[in-house]
C-alpha cells in the first residue's frame, strides 16, 4: 500500500514539487535567518571570545556592552592588581578608528590595543607574522576578514601600509579573529601604540582584563573587585551574555529576524497545508475506491502520513541544503564572515518542518477518514 501511496504522491509532479518547495522555502528561511541572527548575536561578544586568557573583565559601572566604552583612570589598573585572588590584570584599549584604504576610500575599523608586555588581548592564532613583529614601530596586525575587506581581492601579505586615524600603520601580522558586530575590519596593536593613534591623552583605558587565581573562583574575585574598587567586574561569560542581551534589547534585530522567520513558518504552513489539502481532495475519490475495496482507515492514515513524511523529508533536505550552501558561499565574503548554520537550528527547523507537514496532513486526513466509500458508485 505504501508503494501505492508514493505513486499517488509522485503522479501529480507539479503538486508534489509545490509541496516540496513550500517545505524547502520555510526550512531555508528559518535556517538562513536564524543563522544570521545568531551570527550577529555572537558578533556582539566576539571580542570576549577572542581573548580566552582573561576570565574577568573590569569596566566603568555604566558600561553595558563592548561598543559603548567609558574610559577608566590609568590608576585603576594598580588597584585591581591589588585585589586578592587576581592572578594578573592588563590594560585593554578599544576604540573606533577611521582608515583610508588603498583605493582612497574611508572605512570604519575597530582598533584594539593590547598589553605591551604580554600582548594579552590579541587573538592567539596568527595567519601571517608573529606576536613579536607587533613590537616594531607603527606595527599593527589586521584580522583576516578585515584584510580581505581593505585589500579586496589580494592575497594576504605583510608590509602593507594603511592610514589609521590619519597616521601611518604597517601591517606586520594577519590574525584569525572573530567578526565583530560593528565593523568587519579590526586592527590590533600594542596598548601604547593604540593610544598614539587616538591622540586623546591619558585615561584611555577601556577595560581591564583579569585572570583570577586558580584557587579562587572567578565569581568571588568579581565580587572582591567590585567591593574594593567600585568598578564593574564581570566574568567573561556574564559580560558576553550582557553584550548579547544589549543587542536583543536595544536593536530591532530580533523583531526583524523574528518577523521574517514567523512569515516563513506561516507561508510554509499555509502553502503546504493548502496544497496538501488540494492533493488529498483530488485523490479523495481514489481513497474512497481503496476504502470500498477493503483498505482499512488505519492503512489510509499510514498512506497519508507517508506521503506527508516524504514531502517533509525531501523539502526539509532541500531547504537545509540550500541554507547550508548559502552559508558556505556567503561566508566567503568578509561581510558574512562568521555566520554559520548551528546544528541546533537545523534540528529546530526540522521540528518546525515536521510540525508544518504534520498539521497539513492532519487537516487533509480528516477528509480521508470521513469520506463515504459509497461515493464510488456515484457517476
Amino acid at each position, binding site marked *: 500500500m505504501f508503494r501505492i501511496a508514493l505513486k499517488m504522491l509522485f503522479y501529480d509532479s507539479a503538486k508534489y514539487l509545490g509541496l516540496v518547495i513550500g517545505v524547502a522555502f520555510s526550512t531555508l528561511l528559518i535556517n538562513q535567518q536564524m543563522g544570521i541572527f545568531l551570527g550577529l548575536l555572537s558578533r556582539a561578544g566576539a571580542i570576549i571570545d577572542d581573548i580566552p586568557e582573561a576570565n574577568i573583565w573590569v569596566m566603568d559601572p555604566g558600561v553595558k556592552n563592548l561598543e559603548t566604552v567609558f574610559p577608566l583612570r590609568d590608576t585603576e589598573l594598580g588597584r585591581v592588581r591589588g585585589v586578592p585572588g587576581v592572578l594578573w590584570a592588563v590594560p585593554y584599549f578599544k576604540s573606533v578608528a577611521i582608515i583610508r584604504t588603498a583605493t582612497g576610500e574611508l572605512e570604519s575599523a575597530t582598533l584594539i590595543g593590547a598589553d605591551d608586555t604580554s600582548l594579552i588581548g590579541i587573538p592567539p592564532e596568527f595567519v601571517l607574522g608573529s606576536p613579536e613583529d607587533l613590537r616594531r614601530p607603527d606595527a599593527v596586525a589586521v584580522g583576516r576578514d578585515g584584510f580581505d575587506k581593505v585589500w579586496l581581492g589580494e592575497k594576504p601579505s605583510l608590509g602593507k601600509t594603511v592610514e589609521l586615524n590619519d597616521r601611518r600603520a604597517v601591517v606586520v601580522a594577519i590574525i584569525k579573529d572573530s567578526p565583530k558586530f560593528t565593523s568587519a575590519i579590526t586592527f590590533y596593536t600594542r596598548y601604547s601604540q593604540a593610544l598614539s593613534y587616538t591622540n586623546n591623552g591619558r585615561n584611555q583605558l577601556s577595560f581591564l582584563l583579569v585572570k583570577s587565581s586558580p584557587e579562587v573562583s572567578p565569581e568571588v574575585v568579581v565580587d572582591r573587585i567590585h567591593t574594593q574598587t567600585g568598578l564593574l567586574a564581570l566574568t567573561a561569560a556574564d559580560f558576553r551574555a550582557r553584550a548579547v542581551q544589549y543587542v536583543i534589547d536595544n536593536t530591532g534585530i530580533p523583531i526583524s529576524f523574528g518577523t521574517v522567520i514567523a512569515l516563513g513558518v506561516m507561508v510554509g504552513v499555509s502553502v503546504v497545508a493548502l496544497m496538501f489539502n488540494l492533493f488529498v481532495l483530488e485523490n479523495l475519490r481514489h481513497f474512497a*475506491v481503496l476504502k*470500498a475495496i477493503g483498505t*482499512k482507515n488505519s492503512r489510509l492514515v499510514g498512506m497519508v502520513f507517508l506521503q506527508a513524511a516524504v514531502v517533509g523529508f525531501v523539502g526539509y533536505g532541500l531547504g537545509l541544503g540550500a541554507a547550508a550552501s548559502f552559508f558556505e558561499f556567503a561566508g566567503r565574503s568578509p561581510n558574512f564572515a562568521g555566520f554559520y548554520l548551528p546544528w541546533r537550528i537545523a534540528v529546530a527547523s526540522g521540528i518546525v518542518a515536521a510540525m508544518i507537514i504534520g498539521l497539513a496532513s492532519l487537516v487533509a486526513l480528516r477528509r480521508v477518514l470521513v469520506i463515504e466509500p459509497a461515493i464510488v458508485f456515484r457517476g
Partner: protein
Amino acid sequence: MADVTDFDLDPTGVARTSVLTDTTSLNSVSNSVAVQCKGIVKDFGAGQTKVRVLQGIDLDVRFGERTFLVGPSGCGKTTLISIIAGLLDATVGSVNVLGTNLSSIRGGRLVDFRSKNLGFVFQQFNLLPSLNAAENAAVPLIVQGVAYRRAIVAANDFLEQLGISAHRKKYPNQLSGGQQQRVAIARALVHQPRLVICDEPTASLDAQSGHAVMEMLSTLASSPDRAVIIVTHDSRIYSFADRIAYMADGQVLRIEKTPE
C-alpha cells in the same frame, strides 16, 4: 417461474415489498443464496428533510447467477448495492451476504470481509491514475497484504485473459474506455471474490465495447460459487442476465428469470 409481489407493513409502518420466488425461502438463507436482503429501508437526512430511498426491499441473489438490478434513475439501485456491499448501513432491515449478517460485523471486520469477498466494477472505472493497468488490477491483492510482485503476476494473468496484457504497463489515461473497464473487471476478480457488484459497467462504453465487456464479465465472473449483481440501465445487455429485478421508487416491483 412464478414471481409474486405482495405488500405488507413492517413494524415501522413501512410499506414492504416482498418478492417471493418459487425457489427461495426468505426465512432461511439456503446454500444457494449469496445475498439475502430482508425489509431493507434506507432513509437519508432527518426530520423534515428526510428522504426514504428504499422502501422495504426483500431480495435474494443466488450463487452461479448474474442478477441484474434495473430501473429508472433515482429508484434506489445504487443505494441498494451500497448496502449489500457494506458501504452504507440500512436504516431498517437486515442484509446477509455470503452467510454473514452485515449488521453483526463492524469496522475493521467489515472492511476485511469486503476485501476478501467482494469485487467491484464501477461505471466510471475508478482506476487510480497513478498506477498502471497491472498495478490497478492488483490493488485488491495488495490491500489484502499479498506481496507486490505476486499480486502483479496474478493481475497480469487476468489481464491476459481479458486480452489486454499488451497494455499492462499503460496508465489509465493511455487506455480506451473499453480497455479501462477490462482493467476494472480484472481488479474486481483478481482476488477471487464470491460476490461481484457491478454498477453500470457499460454506461460509459459504446455498444460494441459494452457487449465485449459483458461477455468477458459473463465468462470470467460466472462460477457456481460466485454471485454477480449488475446495476444497469442498458437494456441491450439484459440478455446476459440470469434474473432481472425491476425496481421503481425504492421498491423491487418484480423479478424475472431470463430464458436459458
